């Protein structure tokens, strides 16, 4: 059975996006995304865990019996998260200080266990790796989008402290949009996260509906073109 890698990628990035379609992993989403930089850091950490956990679980999926699969998955994920936690603490200490508690909490991130259960426990290793990468990138994109919106509205900057967290090479990302901005505190508090998420979700639905309508219109014209010669 050949895998539809393109389909897996569009699933992860758009159609079945962790945040915008599955509505999973909202707790770290609300807590971390006060800036786009934090969103990027958290997203990359989760992507790393998703990728490795999908690979590990897919490669030992035949060894795990059906009855105890959930505890085994949790154990494997917990081990991987501990590794990620220590790695970030060692090499990206600034990021570690900001994300703090939320990195160990990737263990209970329902998106990771969800992919293990739905995808990696049933599919071959390479396809699972692609799925983990796609889901992780989709999650990262969602975190960055939400973080960027909240950051722009809340403090009129974008990617603030990027150089501090990701290294001096990323200093070019830091932008201040309005120099003397007074700050919109509500957007940086959890209600702002929910509001922005709600509007982004509504936007995604509206865009999908519009594309659907356009695709249907195209189909109609196509069938119309095909029918006209036969009628003649």
């Amino acid at each position, binding site marked *: 059975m050949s895998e539809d890698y393109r389909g897996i990628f569009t699933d992860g990035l758009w159609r079945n996006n962790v945040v915008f379609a599955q509505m999973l992993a909202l707790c770290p989403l609300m807590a971390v995304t006060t800036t786009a930089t934090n969103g990027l850091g958290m997203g990359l950490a989760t992507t790393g865990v998703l990728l490795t956990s999908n690979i590990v679980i897919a490669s030992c999926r035949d060894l795990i019996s059906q009855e105890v699969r959930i505890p085994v998955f949790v154990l494997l994920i917990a081990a991987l998260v501990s590794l990620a936690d220590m790695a970030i603490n060692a090499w990206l200490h600034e990021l570690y200080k900001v994300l703090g508690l939320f990195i160990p909490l990737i263990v209970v991130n329902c998106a990771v266990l969800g992919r293990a259960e739905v995808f990696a426990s049933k599919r071959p290793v390479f396809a699972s790796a692609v799925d983990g990468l796609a889901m992780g990138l989709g999650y990262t994109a969602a975190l960055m989008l939400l973080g960027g919106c909240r950051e722009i509205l809340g403090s009129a900057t974008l990617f603030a402290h990027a150089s501090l967290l990701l290294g001096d090479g990323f200093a070019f990302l830091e932008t201040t949009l309005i120099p003397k901005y*007074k700050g*919109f*505190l*509500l*957007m940086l*508090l959890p209600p702002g996260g929910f*509001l922005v998420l*709600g509007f982004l979700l509504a936007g995604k639905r509206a865009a999908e509906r519009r594309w659907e309508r356009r695709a249907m219109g195209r189909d109609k014209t196509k069938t119309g073109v095909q029918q006209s010669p036969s009628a003649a």
Partner: protein
Amino acid sequence: MSLFPTSAPHAHAPDSVPRLMGLVLLAVAPATLYGIVLFGWPALNLLLVTILACLLCEAVCLRLAGHAVRPFLLDGSALLTGVLLALSLPPWAPWWIGAVGGFFAIVIGKQVFGGIGQNIFNPAMLARVALLVSFPVEMTLWLEPRPLFSSHAPGFLESLTITLGGISDIDAVSGATILGHIRTELGMARELGQILPGHYQAGTAALGWTGGSLGETADLLVLLGGLWLLWRRVMTWHVPVALLATVLVLAGGFHGLNPERFASPAVHLLSGSLMLGAFFIATDPVTSPTTKLGQLIFGAGCGALVYIIRTWGGYPEGVAFAVVLMNAATPLIDHYVRPRIYGRTWRGQSRPVPERAKRPPVGSGEAE
């Protein structure tokens, strides 16, 4: 929550949404005009900006949702929301406070839930709470009164710079409201006997000659407007009376216990936005309970929360928070306090038929 379809008999009345909104706008007009006169051109600018923002957001939302724009836009509900929101803002607030407030009130407070009659929270108060949490500096900038055309009032052109660019010299014009003053001074362990003289006279407070939001200072005018609405039967007495009575009882009780720590009922009733809230905000038919008993509970809850927030809470004034919190409790109140079904007891069993109403069955008439 009283827009649910009810069973027969359907009473016909000339009430319609535009008519009700028009009556409420008329009732709130004296206090609005007084506020504009008291605080000058910047207050008028703010009022216009807020109303414009509300109408614009309403039109865009209706269009996006695919509703007819004209009839809903002209029913006056967005206009009334804009006016009530502006009345609860600091009179010299910059234009973007009004604009952001209008967006919050109409888009997040009302249209997201499905438009008129569907909202859970009072749109104007939701917007005020959001603004207060987001912009604490701008939202607590109170002015001493400086009436229109008086010597130290800003001219029209100067007012435009205030509205568009903010107040240049904040310390020169601002002062504390009486509730804010009491809170600060009590925090410094002073007693009310020392705080109030020189800062507070019940007479001027009732006439509205004091610092505060655009339309909340003129308590007597607000009260008159509210009474007129009661007389026109636009609303019933239950919510305002329960609200004011609860504040009166709580304030009276605590003041009686320790007059140096707790302000007197007169201070509580005649300051802040209590009157405005009691008559124009809490009585919103969409976000308050349906039944009379429910409205009494709702009003009393609002009053108790206002007093608790004012006395022990983090903010000097709590009407907006109290109303929004009780709005959240309205579905619960409506769930437990239901009207009695006609012909049944409160528990739902059918009532015993009274003796004189019993008729002999058809066919065994008196002719036999």
